[in-house]
């Protein structure tokens, strides 16, 4: 379920967080790009959960272990700490209950990796400020009435949610519009303004 029009620059950032031979569940595995990358470069034991049947069929035809399912409904069937890493890549904003989903990720995985588009990015702010309309940008190309992205958040919002769920941020990375990492020493407000996407490594 790739619900973002940009190139998936976050995939490599995510992959770099995962050590070889880990057990990985990729929630919202799309066409299987991340799982394939992880299997090839990290020899992980990878599984996927994907909403669109087309994505699932593509993944299985590529030899990946993927099932059709909904992050909002089907995570409850996974056992506690069944995976080393649970990845939710560019999908959080499309879930009905992001808080519950994040809670489930932290239950199922020893660590959770979450990447999402930052609604606090200056382009989004500017678009709303100048036009007074819901932002439609190159990376968030949907109109408000047909978008699958029903729960956008900013980096700061996400940090607050993590605190509420008792999750520790072990590592966080913001990517600018060019997909480059923003320097580690920058304060949250800076990331929240210039980060177009964020990748968080969480533990609870």
């Amino acid at each position, binding site marked *: 379920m790739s619900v973002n029009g940009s190139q998936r620059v976050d995939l490599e950032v995510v992959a770099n967080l995962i050590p070889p031979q880990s057990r990985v569940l990729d929630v919202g595995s799309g066409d299987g790009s991340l799982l394939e990358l992880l299997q090839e470069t990290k020899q992980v034991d990878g599984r996927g959960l994907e909403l669109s049947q087309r994505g699932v069929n593509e993944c*299985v035809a590529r*030899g990946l272990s993927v*099932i*059709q399912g909904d992050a909002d409904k089907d995570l409850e069937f996974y*056992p506690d700490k069944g995976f080393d890493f649970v990845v939710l890549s560019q999908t959080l904003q499309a879930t009905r209950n992001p808080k519950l989903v994040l809670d489930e990720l932290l239950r199922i995985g020893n660590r959770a990796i979450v990447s999402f588009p930052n609604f606090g990015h200056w382009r989004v702010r500017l678009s709303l400020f100048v036009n007074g309309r819901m932002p439609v940008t190159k990376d968030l190309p949907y109109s408000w009435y047909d978008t699958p992205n029903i729960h956008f958040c900013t980096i700061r919002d996400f940090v607050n949610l993590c605190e509420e769920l008792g999750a520790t941020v072990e590592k966080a990375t913001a990517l600018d519009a060019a997909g480059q990492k923003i320097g580690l020493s920058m304060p949250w407000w800076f990331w929240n303004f210039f980060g177009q996407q964020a990748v968080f490594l969480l533990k609870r």
Partner: protein
Amino acid sequence: MAAPRAGKTNNEADQPSSPVLRFGPDKPLKLDAGTLLSPFQIAYQTYGTLNDARSNAILVCHALTGDQHVASTNPVTGKPGWWEVLIGPGRIIDTNRFFVICSNVIGGCLGSTGPASTNPATGKPYGLDLPVITIRDMVRAQQMLIDHFGIEKLFCVLGGSMGGMQVLEWASSYPERVFSALPIATGARHSSQNIAFHEVGRQAVMADPDWHGGKYFEHGKRPEKGLAVARMAAHITYLSEAALHRKFGRNLQDRDHLTFGFDADFQIESYLRHQGMTFVDRFDANSYLYMTRSMDYFDLAADHGGRLADAFAGTKTRFCLVSFTSDWLFPTEESRSIVHALNAAGASVSFVEIETDRGHDAFLLDEPELFAAIKGFIGSAARARGLSA
């Protein structure tokens, strides 16, 4: 070989044209009914060559009225094997690469011990004297066949419908002997509606005066009418409303007007009658009772304290489940509940739902998406098993 005629016993039952493995009194088959079946025999077909490591064996489990002739001409009907679209040299399941085994299930009528087989105690066909056979009994017998080949671990077990139930039973009962499992269009239990349809079929057979309490061979008869009706009713459940409408609509059969009678005015009637009539030529009525019963009794969760996940606890088997959108006999939800149980057991599982209007029977047909899924799954399992391409 000619089709068996009314009044004659089915020769394929005792002396099949397939290889047969016979188990003497020293090797009885333990049945869930609480008795032992002995002696008994298993008729089977194999395709391809078992490699030196004995690691390339694929067991195909057949469905309710299927048989061991999965990839070669059926000796009774003269038709191609029932899964030749999938299995053969150069096919998705390539017999140049894999050693494919398919055996007639216990209770069947094409050479494995079933109700049409001769009961050695009486010299007459078993009829209803054969104990009720379960899916687990079938799998227990298959396991003895696999032992005979010296195969410790099957590379893959696959099958659709009743075959899929056997696949699930294999994975649950002998997890260490199944590297990968591919249950298609199936369920971990038979639903109430499915039991109901089966009961209609059985009652149709038993209502036929030629059934004679199951002893029809001794009366020189066969309950052809009853079995044909059973098949007609069942056949509807293998299709879908949309597919029936697409194929037949309300089209009339070889006529321009309704006849105001009870001939087969409609094409669908004629089609079903044909299905019923050709079925009785190739299948034994009592065997139909036994096969349907085995599916009705299947409930894998009940065998594990009501929790399906426990049927697969600690499994290392790689699973791929497939369902079809228009299958109302084994709807997607049945597969999904197995997937959830496998998730809970921490198993490696893929699950594909294929969009088609061809209903339950889609698993036997040329469905490109089904083949793509099977190819992807078998390919990645083969790499994991270290089998060369």
